[in-house]
């Protein structure tokens, strides 16, 4: 489609119709100080396509991409291999424009993939039912907190110091706007158990994460039991979906709601988004669940078909009483997740998890051998925190100069928590022995 800009005549015709003498006069209600008087500083004049493409290409080559290797960043977004098949499937025109279906039953293919997605998420988390996805892990976490408040008719939620700070911040923003008390415990490497101490009779839910933001794997069963004893719900969070191939899934630890980020499966890092939120719960809570839900049924002839079900929870029917204002989903990212998960299969997924854990173990061994480096995370999957003898920010800058993107400094996510010498790093199936050796060599030089 050709882009058709307005001509000066078009503009005059519109102004005349609404009775404004000029464009500036039309905007006179906007305070002078808020109006742009001239050009934007530093933004060049318009140029031809070729010149713009060249300019942007020159900017793009300054990017360091994760694909170049020696990349150890995790903390909620993980560099995994995405098979070419995934991209091929999601680029099919029937799927590429996929969005939450507004005339759902006509889009049987889309509904079927959503149903398969839900089935995979439910199996992965060992929960009864999963929805057709949320925006991302952090909003899924916030929605879980809101859902727990609806289900328990209580107005207080507690997050552990191991929950990713971005998830905690999103939860605080959405809950506090509704007058819900949000308690966020101080950052703690092994802090999921501390949730029990913060439990009160009016707590709607405890929110814990495993593996947590420091990579610590925890059994949340005791926390769940304590929550249930007080009539509260347990929300189990994960940021690395691949971990579920090895660590106990939320459903086996007594979770009532499981939420997490699905980017690791089928979705590239992509500058931070769009990602796909995973959301699952127990059968009992299904009607309090936010988001869309695809269901399997039979048509009038008895043939298998798919529908959107339990829509009465949603805003187009329930209006202000809806279980969420999110009635959309990350359809294409969910499809990528499903395509990748289908390619992996159950056995392949477990093998993928195994490769990740082995890579992280090799990385931890290599780093721990360096004088002054101390691995802090007691039990990890593919991510762990370590202490350096010098300031983490300086260490990461020096590693960068040596071609190694060494991870995330904890102080970037948790300011003022006394973690200035802590780096959180991840290894995945993409991490080679050479990458690990390069990291260790570079770190040895700088500490």
């Amino acid at each position, binding site marked *: 489609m050709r882009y058709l800009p307005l001509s000066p005549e078009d503009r005059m015709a519109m102004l005349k119709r609404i009775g404004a003498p000029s464009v500036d006069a039309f905007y006179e209600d906007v305070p002078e100080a808020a109006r742009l008087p001239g050009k934007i500083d530093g933004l060049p004049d318009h140029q031809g396509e070729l010149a713009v493409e060249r300019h942007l290409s020159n900017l793009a080559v300054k990017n360091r991409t994760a694909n170049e290797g020696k990349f150890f960043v995790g903390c909620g977004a993980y560099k995994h291999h995405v098979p070419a098949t995934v991209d091929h499937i999601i680029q099919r025109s029937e799927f590429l424009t996929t969005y939450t279906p507004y005339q759902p039953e006509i889009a049987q293919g889309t509904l079927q993939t959503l149903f398969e997605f839900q089935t995979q998420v439910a199996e992965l988390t060992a929960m009864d039912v999963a929805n057709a996805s949320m925006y991302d892990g952090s909003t899924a976490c916030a929605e879980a907190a809101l859902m727990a408040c609806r289900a328990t008719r209580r107005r207080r939620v507690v997050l552990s110091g191991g929950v990713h700070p971005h998830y905690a911040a999103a939860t605080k923003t959405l809950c506090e706007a509704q007058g819900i008390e949000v308690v966020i415990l101080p950052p703690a490497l092994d802090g999921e158990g501390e949730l029990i101490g913060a439990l009160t009779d009016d707590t709607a839910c405890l929110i814990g994460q495993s593996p947590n933001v420091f990579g610590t794997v925890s059994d949340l069963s005791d926390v769940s039991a304590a929550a249930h004893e007080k009539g509260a719900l347990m929300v189990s969070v994960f940021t690395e979906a691949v971990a579920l191939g090895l660590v106990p899934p939320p459903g086996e630890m007594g979770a009532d709601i499981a939420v997490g980020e699905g980017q690791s499966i089928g979705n590239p890092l992509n500058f931070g988004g769009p990602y796909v939120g995973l959301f699952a719960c127990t059968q009992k809570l299904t*009607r309090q669940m936010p988001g869309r839900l695809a269901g399997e049924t039979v048509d009038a002839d008895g043939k298998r078909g798919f529908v959107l079900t339990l829509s*009465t*929870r949603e805003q187009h029917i329930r209006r202000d*009483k809806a279980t969420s204002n999110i009635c959309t989903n990350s359809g294409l990212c969910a499809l990528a997740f499903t395509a990748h998960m289908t390619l992996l299969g159950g056995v392949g997924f477990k093998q993928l998890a195994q490769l990740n854990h082995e890579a992280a173990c090799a990385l931890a061994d290599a780093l721990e051998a360096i004088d002054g480096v101390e691995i802090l995370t007691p039990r990890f999957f593919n991510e762990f925190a370590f202490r350096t003898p010098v300031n983490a920010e300086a260490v990461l800058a020096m590693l960068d100069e040596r071609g190694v993107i060494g991870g995330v400094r904890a102080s970037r996510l948790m300011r003022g928590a006394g973690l200035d010498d802590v780096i959180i790093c991840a290894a995945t199936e993409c991490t080679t022995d050479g990458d690990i050796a390069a990291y260790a060599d570079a770190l040895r030089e700088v500490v």
Partner: protein
Amino acid sequence: MTTKYTKDHEWVSLDGDIATVGITKFAAEALGDVVFVELPEMGATYLKGSEVAVVESVKAASDVYAPIGGTITEVNDTLTEAPETVNEAPEAGGWFCKMRVTNASEMDALMDKAAYDAHCAAEG
């Protein structure tokens, strides 16, 4: 035992200080096939006019308001497994909950059968 009706199509029967609450035949027919009823919690206290339950049909989900203030003493668990009871016997086996009323005089402001029938006729 007296039975009264609200303009939102709830019915309430008072026996001593225990009120039984449900939705009327008119409401059940307007909703269509009921697929789910969200019942109140035992022991919870509701003011007259507050949301005490949710009834969901294939067409819509609607709030059910307490016709009278009181504390929930019993909920109709049958509706959890067989929500269609609301359609089959809305003003008998399809009751929602029983409550110990706070102030029985709140019944006075509600409609009797004749007034309610006229109300329904006006709504068409």
